[in-house]
């Protein structure tokens, strides 16, 4: 009885999901090719200043202060409560220069002004970027190896594609909306990778368990079994993503502004991870496994 509205026929509807994800990926690739990522100082050198003013203000006031300090051509950004300013300098500032700017803000807004400064030199920025890319690559390889050992290669392949899909969605969205990419972003991507494969494994585990006692005589049998496995684990998949999501949303809305982008990346990655585990990974495996089932079908019973 397909009365339960959650029991979507994931296998036979798979093309809808493939097309959907394919579209997003395509847009993402185009965006990255055209605009690249908006790198923060961790990867593209320079100085970043976050200044807590303790009072509400406007962009034009902030610009005036910066102009008087000798930095007129910049685009400062105002935080959510209008009491925090972020300024990004493409050159690396010295301690004295930073101090001068801080004094200018103290003069205008009072002694409670507090700042966070991040300065990265070009050589180090490049190094950090390289290390970050290597880290992500190594993590993926480690996971492919582990999943191949625990399951079979088709599972590993399906899992990795789902994983890239999730990481890619986060990267594309950050590119489309020109959100700043720094070291915490890479940490978020690595965590999302871990979580996404986590999620996918739970479903694969159930598929493998169900296959032990089932007789698969046709691709249809296989599709039904996979659907059943997904429905059986749906409760867990949804609840787990909900609980982590609640915490991630709390961090995003209520937490410090310094980690807001990190929380956002986690949010997007978690949702993408749940979606890809349920709608993409298993369908991919089905597509890969179908030929071997059909081959058996031709053998007389």
């Amino acid at each position, binding site marked *: 009885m397909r009365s339960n509205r959650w029991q979507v026929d994931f296998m036979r509807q798979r093309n809808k999901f493939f097309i959907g994800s394919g579209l997003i990926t395509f847009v993402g690739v185009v965006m990255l090719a055209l605009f690249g990522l908006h790198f923060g100082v961790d990867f593209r050198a320079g100085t970043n200043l976050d200044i807590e003013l303790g009072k509400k203000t406007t962009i034009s006031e902030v610009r005036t202060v910066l102009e008087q300090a000798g930095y007129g051509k910049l685009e400062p950004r105002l935080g959510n409560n209008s009491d925090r300013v972020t300024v990004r300098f493409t050159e690396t500032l010295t301690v004295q220069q930073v101090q001068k700017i801080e004094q200018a803000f103290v003069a205008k807004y009072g002694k409670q002004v507090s700042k966070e400064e991040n300065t990265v030199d070009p050589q180090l920025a490049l190094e950090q970027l390289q290390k970050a890319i290597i880290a992500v690559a*190594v993590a993926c390889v480690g996971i492919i190896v*582990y999943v191949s050992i625990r399951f079979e290669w088709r599972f590993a392949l399906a899992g990795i594609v789902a994983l890239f899909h999730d990481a890619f969605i986060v990267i594309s969205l950050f590119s489309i909306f020109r959100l700043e990419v720094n070291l915490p972003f890479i940490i978020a991507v690595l965590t999302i990778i871990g979580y996404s494969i986590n999620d996918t494994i739970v479903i694969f*585990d159930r598929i493998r368990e169900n296959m032990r006692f089932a007789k698969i005589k046709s691709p249809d049998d296989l599709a039904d079994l996979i659907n059943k496995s997904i429905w059986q684990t749906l409760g867990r998949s949804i609840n787990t993503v909900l609980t982590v999501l609640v915490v991630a949303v709390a*961090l995003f809305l209520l937490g*410090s502004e310094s980690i807001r982008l990190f929380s956002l990346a986690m949010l997007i990655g978690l949702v993408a991870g749940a979606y890809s585990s349920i709608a993409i990974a298993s369908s991919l495996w089905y597509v890969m496994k179908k030929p071997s089932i059909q081959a058996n079908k031709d053998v007389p019973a």
Partner: protein
Amino acid sequence: MVSKVTNKVNRPRLVLWIAIVVITLGVIGATSLPIAQKVKLGLDLKGGFEVLYVAEPLEPGQQVTPEALLETARNLQQRIDKQGTSEPEITPEGDNRIRAKIAGVQNESELRELLKKPSELSFRNSEGKKELLGSDFVPGGATIEFDQTGRPYIGITIKNKEKFKEVTTRLLNQPLAIYLDEEMLSAPIIQAVIPDGKASIEGDYQLDEVKNLVNTINLGALPLKLTEKYSQSVGATLGQKSLETTLWAGIIGSVIVLVFMIWYYRLPGVIAAISLITYTWLLMLAFQLMGVTLTLPGIAAFVLGIGMAVDANIITYERIKDELRSGKTLLSALRAGSKNSFATIMDANITTIIAAAVILFIGSSSVRGFGVILIASIVCSILTNVFYSRWLLSMFVRTNVLLQPKYFGVKGEEIRAL
């Protein structure tokens, strides 16, 4: 269905269960605040600055050695210590880098200028004129020696033998004071003319003093130029605000998760809530014992970890519900559910550990902290959300209180005949 097992409430076990829960929560309640206060906070929460220097030799033709790097780092630490600020952490990194972390300072730019200056070693005569400079000494040429009576003294090697011979001849029987920057460390008297550039400095020295002087001379012989490559400086107020808002976000998020678990899973949910609280406490204790420095991303990891830790409970409880729906009795559903979900939980945790291990090995210092926290979270989660919570649940079920499936979130009509 006739049940062979008596359904009388097992009072002693119930009492034991309640006692365990009360003790657990009691210990957590009593020790949480002291533990939390002892956890080391990173600069982005406490305020302070961190600088990564690249070291190059001041004199052309010299090369950065590990000893020179270590000595320079030690010297920098001494400079900051003298200013009276608390806990500077200055360590060599890689072949030619030094990382300095200094918390809670008022005069940051002064200190940063102070750190950048190379040390100057000089040997001065009684009028204060500099007779020898650091560049006159062979790098690494100062050594600790012992004479026949076991007293320590300093052996030095000068590059220019003629020059040293001239100085020792001219200043025979006069003191030649050893200065580092403007501080006089010792003033030994020249007792003989040295023709070959190799001399010994003797006196009433303790071993510590000799060690210090040897290190200082070697430092002066290979002064390093430090250039800032990376810096992060956080004002104390901003750091404090970051800490407070993020902690609040974490607490609110966690409370919502606990409420959800209890509402959705009923009785097991209550147990999950207890084990989650225990998990948080255990993780904090682990931080304090490991001496981990908690940075802002670290707190985010901590908070997210709570959301993920509950996953082990969810996997188990969904499985138990499945077994209940298939008609098994409560106790056998519990056992079957726990057994079947264990492999899944371990698989899921191992993949996260792989990601965390990568972060640990490849990341830079602040990123590494995140990796440590992630791995610690998984270990603590296995201890509390797998073993401890299963033990509690199993014990409670065997007290025979609240036996109906509805207390486990399974509706009567969902149960099929076995």
